[in-house]
């Protein structure tokens, strides 16, 4: 029997007055955009316009939005194959993301990376990594570079609960603590590694937070569906990293609304568990809170409508883009643009 995650104390906190209304609207808008983008990706899959696989973050929008809004423009994001939202919140266009999913010339990498590898260096989205654990040390390296160059940039690294059981997680966190690197490790604990409950395969109840003390870090366990909590936690961790205080390890408990990937209907999850978490959907939950804070429903409706118009336009542009020129399969193995390995 899987243990239920301990509800973070922060989740029960009242909305903090220091988050101003403009920021709250930005958090709401970002979550709505993420939700619509993922929902559209799902729909395009159903229409067979997206091939291969895709790992949606429906239900996990509060983590991407909370961090995305809190991060500085020149900070670095490293995320996983479940990374559409993390890439989007750094400023990448919906067209570029949908184009990449559809494998055409509108795509962020013109089809050379695909859903699992969205990257936009100019936006600080330094890659979506599809091998579990790999990007934790890579993020530490970007943080080392920022530390060496004295830029006060922070690297933020998102990963799932399953990652806490692979070696690279432990190597990277130890390394980052010893070198006091400006990196924030964010575990999105959505309770399932792929098809198996994280609690069935992990020695501790909170897969990231309970490991923090092994590296001399404060355990930080938060409600990953409460965007205010995520935003405040992000601000504190980013400030700590930026001011030379070293890394943080945050466990944000959340839930994916669907299965692990396109092929997975997620039937291994008990119905009442799914029902409970759908009742804690971060987007309507935040809408309720904002209405309670006297934010006008019309303002929120307008954000919803603007987002829908934006995603419709992006979809049309992306789906009508031509296929990539096959010649691009032959370029950019090397820095000279080519693929030559012999003379």
């Amino acid at each position, binding site marked *: 029997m899987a243990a239920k995650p301990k509800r973070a104390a922060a989740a029960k906190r009242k909305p903090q007055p220091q988050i101003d209304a403009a920021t709250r609207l930005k958090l709401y808008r970002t979550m709505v955009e993420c939700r619509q983008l993922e929902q559209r990706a799902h729909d395009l899959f159903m229409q067979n316009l997206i091939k291969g696989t895709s790992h949606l973050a429906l239900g996990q929008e509060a983590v991407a939005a909370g961090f995305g809004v809190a991060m500085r423009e020149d900070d670095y994001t490293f995320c996983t194959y479940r990374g559409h939202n993390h890439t989007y919140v750094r400023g990448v266009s919906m067209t570029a993301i949908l184009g990449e999913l559809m494998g055409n010339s509108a795509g962020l990498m013109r089809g050379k990376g695909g859903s699992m590898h969205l990257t*936009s260096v100019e936006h600080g989205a330094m890659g979506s990594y599809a091998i579990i654990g790999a990007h934790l040390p890579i993020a530490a390296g970007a943080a080392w570079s920022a530390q060496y160059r004295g830029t006060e940039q922070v690297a933020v690294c998102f990963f799932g609960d399953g990652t806490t059981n692979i070696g690279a997680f432990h190597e990277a966190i130890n390394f980052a603590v010893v070198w006091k690197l400006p990196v924030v490790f964010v575990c999105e604990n959505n309770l399932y590694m792929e098809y198996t409950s994280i609690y069935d395969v992990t020695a501790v109840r909170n897969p990231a937070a309970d490991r923090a003390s092994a590296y001399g870090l404060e355990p930080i366990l938060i409600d990953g569906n409460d965007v205010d909590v995520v935003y405040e936690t992000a601000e504190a961790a980013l400030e700590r990293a930026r001011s030379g205080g070293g890394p943080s390890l945050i466990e944000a408990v959340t839930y994916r609304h669907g299965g692990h990937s396109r092929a997975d209907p997620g039937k291994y999850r008990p119905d009442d568990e799914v029902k409970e978490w759908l009742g804690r959907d971060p987007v309507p939950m935040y809408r309720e809170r904002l209405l309670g804070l006297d934010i006008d429903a019309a303002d929120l409706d307008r954000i919803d409508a603007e987002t829908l118009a934006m995603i419709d336009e992006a979809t049309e542009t992306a789906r009508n883009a031509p296929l990539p020129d096959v010649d691009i399969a032959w370029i950019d193995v090397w820095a000279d643009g080519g693929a030559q390995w012999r003379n």
Partner: protein
Amino acid sequence: MAQLSYREAVTEALAQEMRRDENVVFIGEDVAAAGGVFKTTVGLLEEFGPDRVRDTPISEQAILGATMGAAMTGLKPVAEIMFSDFFAVCWDIVANQIAKTRYMTDGQAELPLVIRSGNGGGVRFGAQHSQSVENWAMAVPGLKVVAPAMPADVKGLLAASIRDPDPVLFFEQKALYAAKGEVPDGEHVEPLGTASVLRSGSDVTIVALALMVPRALKAAEELEAQHGISATVVDVRSLVPLDTQTILSEVAKTGRLVTVEENPRLCGWGAEISSIVAEELFWDLDGPIVRVTTPHIPLAAADSLEDAMLPSADKIVASVRELVD
């Protein structure tokens, strides 16, 4: 010109490039305070300080991941993997991440990094500390692969690897660290992707790499002196990019090719060169292509057993005589 050991040439190249470019930084296990377990980096910490020369935990994934992240964000890091056998514990970072990221990102990501590693046998360390793994690296698109034999090339090719905008795996042959040779004073940079013709002959072309180069040279001298066979010796130096033009032209002159590889036989680099020569130079050949390799077995620790497995000058002589006579 100065007489330097192979290991001193490593230090010289690192110091030369670190003086030239403050974005060159160097990390690894026991590399800073201890100067490296093979004493290849003695004095670097003292000259460049702890921000640029840093000891790491025994965490090869962290070492190479951090190297990649630093390279993507403006530095030119050099990492040491103490023994090349240890690539097996961090191969994801090398083969999946470092090698593919520029390509997958449609050219966005920059990866100017070097991974130095002690490679190969001859030092009686047993099966897990003696492997020649250059062909592991060669099998992955996106990695440049360099393996020098001579101290001068160590300096020149390591400097070039650090300046190169692509990821380079730089294999240093452990049994050669004490070997001495003439090394140019001052700044010395040799272009990657160039083979070196060390000896010109008329009967056979011997193509070798790293520790096999001095053995091939010794064999060539013996073939000349005792058997009247005149051999060309080519040091491949760089497997990726591969200087096939030099190899093809040297084989065309003699009509015979013998490759000498330290790696176990299957899918060794000599097979790739043999295939290229067979496809592109078949009608110029006067005999079959011969590969001298370590057999397809792990290396034993005992000196007598290791010596029985690695290609020696005697084995090269015997193989060439069988081909030419």
